[in-house]
Structure formats: structure tokens, C-alpha cells
């Protein structure tokens, strides 16, 4: 049996030593700035889990190092003959594993459950929303916002290439499909991604809280130029967005070409999707 006192010592060493050291590392390699209302859920869950796992890892390293040094063949200590077959041994192993499960895994499960039900997979159907349709293709992002009529798939739709503009502080709901192969709509600053599949509609929702230019990334291997399938997401202030939207909708209507089938890739908004 590994004595309890030493285990506790290992926990303390883990917290004092590995913790701050790794925290320093994690700080240098932290994710890009979180601009969303929901992103902190991922960050805090990651950090809390990391601290707990560092403790476990410290214990593991302690056992490996100490037994490798202290229990080498040359030392004359008595070999601890123990099969570990007794009910007591199994009970101890089961209790340790169950504790780890309930604390570490349990925390992940509980928070993930909350996160997806309250935020990530909780898609709004009504209210004041920024609705956007996305149709990626090899190797570009096409975005579609409704014009002044508020309807998709009409003549005043604002269609942009690799340039998504949305207003700040307003929940976004995106629906997407793919024109060819599978792509994945990844917003590092929002901590979310969702695949865009040919033939079916997937969704993502988030609320941007910060204005500025951020990157849109394709996270699913989609062929030769996958690596540069990049778009800009411009989060604008409410006033800036309204001004841009008014203008863009006007130009969209005046430039609309009934014959150009390629440009009419939008679909009717799937309200209950």
C-alpha cells in the first residue's frame, strides 16, 4: 500500500511546484481573447480540470520517481510481497477510482451538461437575433444576412465572401450547409466550432460582447487549400452595423441578378430546426 501521508505530501508538492510552473506555461500559451458571453465556460472548466489533473499527475510522477530511485535492485529493503487480491485491496482501488470519477469527471459532466443546455446547444428560435446563413465551399466562406425585409433567400440578401459582419451584444444564430466537402466553422475567440456538412443544416449560437476583427477558421480537413480557408469576422457597434446594413442591403437589391443561379444558394430559415 502507498502510505497516505506520502500521498498527501505529493499533493502538496504538486500544488506548490507543478501548479504555478504549469500556470506560467498556460499563461504564455493561452487561447486568443474570449469575446463571447459563453466562452468563459470553456476556459474556467479547462483551468479547474487542469489543476485537478496536475495533482493526479504529481502523484503519478511521485510514485514513478520514488520507486525508481529508492526501490532499485541494489537497495536492501524487504520486498513487499502483496498480491492485491483481497476484497480490501479491490475496495480501496474502487474507492480511489470512484472518487476521481465523481470529482474530476463529475465536474466535467455537470458543467458540460449545463453548458450545452444553457448555451452552446440551446438554439434560440425567437427574439432579437442576428440570423446568418453560411455556405462554405472549397476554400472560402460565403455568408448571407437578410436584407431590410428580414427574409432569407430574397433579392435584398446581403451576401459576402470571407467577410462576416455582425453587431455587438446581440445573440447570433447561424445555420450552415456545405457546397462540396465537409468544413468546420471554428471561431477561436468564441471557443466553439461546428461542422458544415453537405446536405444537412447545422447550427451555432453565441453572443459577441466585444467589437473588433476576429478570425474565422476551417477546422476540418477540406482539401488542398484547407490551410488558408480563412475569413474575417467583424463585430461592429450597433450604430456602425445599422449604417453598414442599410447600405449593403441597398446595393444588394440594385445588384440582384435573377439569372445568376450560383448566387442563390440561400434557403428558407428553418425556424424550428
Amino acid at each position, binding site marked *: 500500500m502507498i502510505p497516505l501521508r506520502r500521498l498527501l505530501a505529493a499533493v502538496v508538492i504538486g500544488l506548490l511546484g507543478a501548479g504555478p510552473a504549469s500556470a506560467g506555461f498556460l499563461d504564455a500559451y493561452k487561447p486568443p481573447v474570449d469575446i463571447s458571453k459563453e466562452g468563459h465556460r470553456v476556459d474556467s472548466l479547462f483551468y479547474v*480540470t487542469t489543476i485537478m489533473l496536475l495533482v493526479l499527475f504529481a502523484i503519478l510522477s511521485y510514485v514513478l520517481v520514488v*520507486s525508481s530511485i529508492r526501490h532499485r535492485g541494489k537497495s536492501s529493503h524487504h520486498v513487499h*510481497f502483496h498480491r492485491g487480491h483481497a476484497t480490501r485491496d479491490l475496495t480501496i482501488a474502487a474507492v*480511489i477510482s470512484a472518487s476521481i470519477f465523481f470529482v474530476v*469527471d463529475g465536474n466535467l459532466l455537470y458543467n458540460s451538461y449545463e453548458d450545452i443546455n444553457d448555451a452552446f446547444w440551446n438554439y434560440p428560435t425567437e427574439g432579437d437575433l442576428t440570423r446568418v446563413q453560411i455556405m462554405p465551399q472549397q476554400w472560402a466562406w460565403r455568408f448571407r444576412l437578410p436584407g431590410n425585409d428580414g427574409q432569407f433567400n430574397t433579392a435584398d440578401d446581403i451576401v459576402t465572401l470571407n467577410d462576416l459582419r455582425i453587431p455587438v451584444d446581440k445573440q447570433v444564430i447561424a445555420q450552415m450547409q456545405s457546397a462540396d466537402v465537409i468544413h468546420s466553422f471554428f471561431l477561436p475567440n468564441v471557443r466553439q466550432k461546428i461542422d458544415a456538412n453537405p446536405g444537412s443544416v447545422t447550427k451555432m449560437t453565441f453572443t459577441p460582447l466585444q467589437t473588433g476583427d476576429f478570425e474565422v477558421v476551417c477546422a476540418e480537413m477540406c482539401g488542398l487549400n*484547407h490551410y488558408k480557408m480563412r475569413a474575417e469576422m467583424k463585430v461592429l457597434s450597433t450604430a456602425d452595423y445599422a449604417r453598414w446594413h442599410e447600405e449593403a442591403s441597398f446595393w444588394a437589391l440594385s445588384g440582384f441578378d435573377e439569372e445568376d443561379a450560383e448566387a442563390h444558394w440561400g434557403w428558407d430559415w428553418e425556424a424550428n430546426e
Partner: protein
Amino acid sequence: MSADAHHHEPGFVGKYIFSMDHKMIAKQFLWLGLVGLAVGGLMAMLMRWNLANPGEAVPLVGNMLFPDSGGVIPPDAYASLFTMHGTIMIFFAITPLLIGCFGNFCIPLMIGARDMVFPLLNMLSFWTAALASVFMFGSIFVPLGGAASGWTAYPTLSTNVGLPGLGMTMWVVAIFLIGTSSIMGAVNYITTVIRLRAPGMGYFDMPLTVWGLWLTAILNALFVPVIAAAMVLLFFDRVFGTQFFAAGSAVVDGTGDPILYQHLFWIFGHPEVYILILPAWGVVSDLLSFFSRKPAYGYKITALGMTAVTVLSAVVYGHHMFSTGLSPLLGQSFMVLTMIISVPAEIFFLNWLHTIWKGRIRMATPMLFSLGVVFVFGLGGLTGLYLASISTDLYLHDTYFVVGHFHLTMAAAAFLGFFAGLYYWFPKFTGRMLNENLGKIHFAGSIITITIVFCGMLLQGWAGMHRRIYDHSVYTYLQHLAPMTNIITHSALTLGFFQLFFVVNFFRSWFAGEKAPENPWQVGTLEWATSNPIPHGNFEHIPVVFRGPHEFNNPDYAHLGRDWVAQWEQLPGDPSPEERIASTHVPAPQAAHS
């Protein structure tokens, strides 16, 4: 069969090429796997060079490999490199080395059998694998290039919509063939363990190596047929224009579903990661005990824990698909199931730590590599939790965090486990010892660089670096990660360099190494009951087994003056062979073949 009655010396072709002897087939798989490991490893180094120096010519070999671009790796070649690296390492390195080679060599010898139960099937299994490797390696050289869809080959990219070349089709055929080879091997291993155990050897007297290989074989037999089916459908889509997967997109009319492929792929794909790691777990569970000179702590619980992981591995695959738009019910179910699989894994991991604690550890090379497995698997196993949880996975999926995690678990742990086993069984394999000093340099160089490479990837992944990217400098939010990319590349190249110590050691020892004693590690499992070189039919007489494989420093046997007792030794106080056989219900196997 009897060892001598029908024995006639086969000719060169019968002995070295179309051999039905499990030991020769193990050697054939070893060579195939080492070639795969070398090719796959060199591909990894080319990728690492490109990541640290995008657009710069590869030194030394660049002009030879990429003459059209002046030695620079072009983006299409890069895509082909990461596809082929993954495929080759999984199906043509780990599979032949840990399953083909160790499975063939260890199972019959460790359970006291004269050969596999189906020697002809065994031979066919190798030659199917050889045919598969012709298709796989050949696919690189055909016009339009090799497969370039990632090892997962998701449609519609992997159909003619994305990759119309012949190389991709050859890749599909190669996966189907190597799968067929695996199934043939699996049927053989499963049956051999059930039917041909030495008299007196109950299931819980088997070495844990045999447990690991047996559970792997069961998973292979159950789940490789699923990927084979997916490959057949993908082949039809590519060659005959069906639309099982290639549908829905604007360029194709039809009613197929690319997501269906992902389900099929991962129903196989998740058990596959356990297929790859279970043999290493088994080997390590044994070696930690052998070299700590202590019984494997909680042997039965370890065996049952590995069995529990095997069963659960069938129902966790959905965690690969959290970002595909999976229904919340499915997502949550797979999240819970995935977390549950950590419990049995933790239990036998604790058993490993208990085994080495207060032992009398002999720090020979096999032990060093085994401790290395415990270390890297600890790191890799813990980081898996972030990917099982939907919240964190939505961010980390398809980033370098995933790359770091699965390399630590199924690549580094599997290969370190392979090296542990190879250093350990090499004397049985060849009658000669591998050099210990070169082995220790090999270990030290490997473990340090492995830790830097894959922990570096974990950090980059957390910083948001996505995978399968030819040039990360395209993205402003990844610019500050370039120094870490450089560190990883240097460590990866150093890791490659340290493998040269193994290559030298391997060839020198194979032909001119120090002659091995009969039982160099003083271990009592059955492969050490037979002489070197191993006679035809393996054993003079099939031994009767009296005890489990890990009898070290048992106070009851202190009077023997050594710290180990063999499984085949009948000591005072043991039952008679007849009584032992009656109590374990394992009689001598009937003549299964001749």
C-alpha cells in the same frame, strides 16, 4: 501433433517465405512493421520540417523527393504526408509490430502451444498484409498523388468530389486488405487462446500479455468488419458512381449521407485505439511485475479491468463526433459513457503503480521502456478527459490538443510498449541479447523528446492551433506560437536521431550480439521453459502449469534460494499434474493439426 513424427525440413521458400510457423510469421510481421515505422517516422519529420520552415526547401532529401518545387514540400504533398503518416503508423507499424509480431510470437509460446491453431490462415494473414502494403505504399507513386484526406478519409472529400486520383482508391483497397488480414489473425488468436492453453493453465494463469493480445483480437474480429464495410461502400462511390456517402452537396445530386460514414468509421475507429494499446498494456503489466520482482498487483482485477475497457470501447465512439451536429441526447450519452471508461482504466493504472512500489526494481532496458509507457500513458489518459467533455471538446476538437493527446496514448505508449517487449523478447527471438547501453541511450533520448513534442502540442492546441494546416503563419492569432513550433520540430528530429541507436543495436545484436542465457531475465512464464533456438513444435514436452505468471519473492518459496518460481515447476506442496488439471478444467489440447 507430435514434434518429430511428421517433421521434415522445409526448403528455403517454405522456411522463410511461405512459412506456416508462427515464429517465422512473427519475424515477417516484425520486418514489415519496422519498414512501416521507418517510413511513417520519416514522413513525420518531413511534416515537422515544413511546419517550422514553411516554404523552405527540405535539406538533404528535398530535391530528390520534391524536384518540381525545388525541394519545397508543396501543400498537396503535405496533405498526403499527414494522411499516409497516420495510416502507415496505425495499420503498417503498430498493427504488424504489436499485434502481428508479438501476437504470433508470444501467444503460442506463453500459453505452451506448439503453434497457432490455424497455421495456414496465419500465413494467409501475413501475405494479405503484404499485399495491402503493396497497395498502400504504391499509392504514393501514382499520378495525381496519394490519399490526402487525413487518415479518417471523411467523405465527401474522400470521394471523387474531393480526390479523384487513383491513389485514394488504392488506399481504400489497402485498408480493406489489411483489415482482412487483421480479421484472419484475430480469429486465429482467439481460438488459439481458448483451445491450446497448456494443461493446468486457466484463463487467470495466463500472462497479462496474452490477455492484452487476446482482448485486442476480440475487438479486431468484432469491429474491423465495420471499417471493411465502410471501405466497400466508399470504393463503390469512387469506382462505380454510387452515392452512399457522396451526396447532398451542390455538385452531386443524390440522397446519400456523409455522416453515415463517420458513424461507421468511428464504430471501428474508437475500438481501434484500444486495439492498438491493449497489447502494450498487457506487455507493460507483465514487465512491471517481472522487473520489480513482485507479483502483478491485483492481477485478476487488471485482467478484468482491461476486459471492461474492451467492452466499453464499443459504446464510446460518439465523442469523435460532438461537432458534427450530433443530437443532444446522443452527445450527452456518449459523454457519460466515455467518462465511465476511465474508471476501469484508472483501476489497473493504480495496480501498475502498486506493482512497482516497494519492489526490488531491476532497471534493465525493458523496464525503462515500461516505466516510460506508464508516464506517457498517464499524461495521455488524463488529457483525454478534456475531449470527452462536450464543452471543452467544442473548442479543442481538431486542434493540436487532440494530436498531442492521441500521440501520447496510442502512438508513444504503443511504441514504447513495443520497444519494451522487443528488448525483453529479443533473446528468445534471436538467441542474442540487445546491447543494454545502446538501449538505455535509446530510451533516454526517446522519452525526453517524446514528452517535449507532445506536451508542446497540447499547449499549442489549447492556444487554438488547428490541425492539418500546411502553414500556420496565415493566421494572426497563431503567430506567437512559432517558437513552440520550432521547439517541437527540433525535438521531433532529435527523437528521430535517437532511433538510430536502436537501428544499430538491432542489426548488430541480431547477427553478432552477446549470446543470450536460457532465461536472461529470470522469469517463469512458459516461453522460457523451452530451449534456444526454439525447437520445431516449440516444446520438447508441453509443460503442465501449476501457478500464475508472477511468482516473485513469495515468502513460501524463500528456501529455494532464488526470488522467482516458474509456472511449470512442480514444488513440494503443489498438487499432482492430474489434480491440477482437474481443478482448472484445462486438459492437454487434442491434436489440432499436424
